[in-house]
């Protein structure tokens, strides 16, 4: 299991590694301290919402980031996860946490045929198929009122007893979401460095080429798609347990899927922490705009403007853009090496022409 890391100049590499560790520790400390820092219950609930967005966006990024298949319909899996969890509790009297896990597994099983059908098409066609699924589910869950509660919605029993008060609920769910997010990030990181991940990234870069090199592209796509659907469903189920109420119009909404995409693109889909950063920015901005403009649609206009700015000025997302900025101020060792490499090529080319 020896692995060789990139031999960039030693000093720079240690500095980067130290910065990463410090950053990670700071992030964990911030998350751990957030509930006690939050001035009131409302801010705490905003924290839970943002954590939930981060879970969903990071789950989405298993497909979007690795394979480059942009699913606008991931709300299908979060919605199904939420409903599966709720219905298992209500109709089958399953323990809430077991229901959450079972819900994830059911959605993962459903994602297999859905993936087989939808991953055959690429690019814009895949986007359309993913949207179609959400719209179908919206209609089904609205119409099948006797089972799903229909447009009246579904009240989800709280997993913690009634004696646990609101702020306490928020705090527990904040930590639960944070723990789930930690698991997701660990999985994404593990895939990112693996052979599987390398094959997936090859698919993102050039699927035909990857296949011609022997990468079993369809199997790879399907596996990561099912993993993504599973985590998205767990995220949706967790949200349902916290929020306590499900309505098809919000669960199976194109908007929810679009937020996952927007957040991931904003932070950077090639970066481990990209979707998390995007979720914090978009989630905070949304609550801010809602607070400013009340219950109007103005926050959507602001979101649209944000997306346009990102696409225009940071097409790769914030984290890669920041990375480039930092690289510019780093010790120049790296760029000198590139220079010598170029010179080397020229030298070789000249030698060959002479010889």
């Amino acid at each position, binding site marked *: 299991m020896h692995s*060789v890391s990139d031999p960039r100049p030693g000093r720079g590499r240690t500095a980067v590694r130290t910065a990463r560790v410090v950053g990670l520790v700071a992030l964990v400390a911030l998350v751990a301290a957030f509930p006690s820092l939050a001035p009131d219950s409302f801010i705490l609930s905003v924290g839970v919402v943002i954590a939930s967005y981060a879970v969903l966006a990071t789950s989405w990024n298993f497909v979007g980031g690795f394979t480059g298949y942009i699913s606008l319909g991931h709300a299908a899996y979060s919605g199904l996860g939420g409903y599966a969890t709720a219905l298992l509790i209500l109709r089958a009297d399953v323990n809430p946490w077991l229901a959450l896990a079972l819900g994830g597994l059911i959605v993962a099983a459903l994602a297999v045929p859905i993936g087989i059908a939808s991953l055959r098409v690429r690019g814009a066609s895949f986007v359309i198929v993913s949207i179609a699924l959400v719209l179908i589910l919206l209609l089904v869950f609205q119409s099948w009122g006797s089972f799903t509660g229909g447009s009246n919605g579904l009240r989800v029993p709280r997993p913690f007893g009634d004696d646990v008060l609101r702020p306490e609920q928020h705090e527990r769910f904040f930590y639960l979401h944070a723990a789930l997010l930690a698991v997701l990030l660990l999985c994404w990181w593990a895939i990112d460095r693996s052979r599987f991940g390398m094959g997936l990234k090859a698919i993102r870069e050039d699927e035909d080429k990857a296949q011609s090199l022997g990468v079993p592209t369809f199997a790879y796509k399907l596996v990561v798609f099912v993993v993504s659907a599973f985590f998205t469903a767990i995220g949706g189920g967790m949200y349902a347990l916290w929020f306590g109420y499900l309505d098809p119009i919000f669960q199976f909404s194109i908007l929810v899927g679009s937020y996952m995409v927007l957040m991931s693109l904003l932070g950077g889909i090639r970066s481990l922490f990209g979707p998390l950063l995007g979720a914090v920015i978009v989630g905070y901005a949304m609550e801010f705009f809602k607070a400013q403009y009340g219950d109007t649609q103005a926050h959507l206009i602001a979101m649209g403007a944000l997306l346009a700015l990102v696409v225009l000025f940071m097409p790769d997302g914030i984290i890669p853009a920041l990375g480039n900025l930092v690289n510019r101020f780093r010790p120049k060792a790296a760029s000198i090496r590139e220079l010598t490499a170029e010179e080397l090529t020229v030298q070789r080319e000249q030698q060959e022409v002479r010889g």
Partner: protein
Amino acid sequence: MTTTITRGLETTGLAKSFGGVHAVDNATVAFHHGKVNALIGPNGSGKTTFFNCVTGMIKPDAGSVSYRGEDITGRPPHRIARAGIGRSFQLCRVFPRMTVLENLLASVRSPTLPGWLRSARQRGDIERARELLMRVGIDHLEHAEARDLSYGQQKLLELAGVLMTDPETIMLDEPAGGVNPALLDRIANLVRALNAEGKTFLIVEHNMDLVMSLSDHVVVFDRGAPIAEGSPDEVRADPRVLEAYLGS
């Protein structure tokens, strides 16, 4: 005229149409295993479609493809690759936003599911990749992103990437296209050396100097099917070939 010792890549009655255009039309070809084969023909004669049918990128309408006696018709490209046939693409395709080294590591697979999660940077794989990069002469660029390479360097990278899968037969679609003379020499020498090590080549090419100097066996395509084949000298003297190229 020719004796095929080992059965290599063969097609029988291969056909593929796009609408009313018969791109490949009843093509029956047996390439010489262990040799450098060239596939030539005027533009639009169906060489690339033939290539794509053989490598599984396109499913043929009719006919069959066999490799070493085994029927591989209509198999998905990754399984054809696994059968030992590697290919390059016309106009060169690499993974632009991966480093040169990662371009080679991307094709390393694990047969078992747990193996999928092993680090992609196994020492053995990296050493093999570096050897191949050194062989094609771009080892000093291993940390550069592929998109930052010159076109010629990308061509070498693509070749190294194909070699990483350790194919028995290597199909190159226009290896000389857009390449300067020095680099062309390097590519030709690589093909010769690899052939001497036992690799079979199938090269689609328009550069006649390269074809004539490099290949042992030439197949000439016109209107989707072979019209002549033989040694470079035989083909050069064939009136049907001249007619196909100069037009009627």
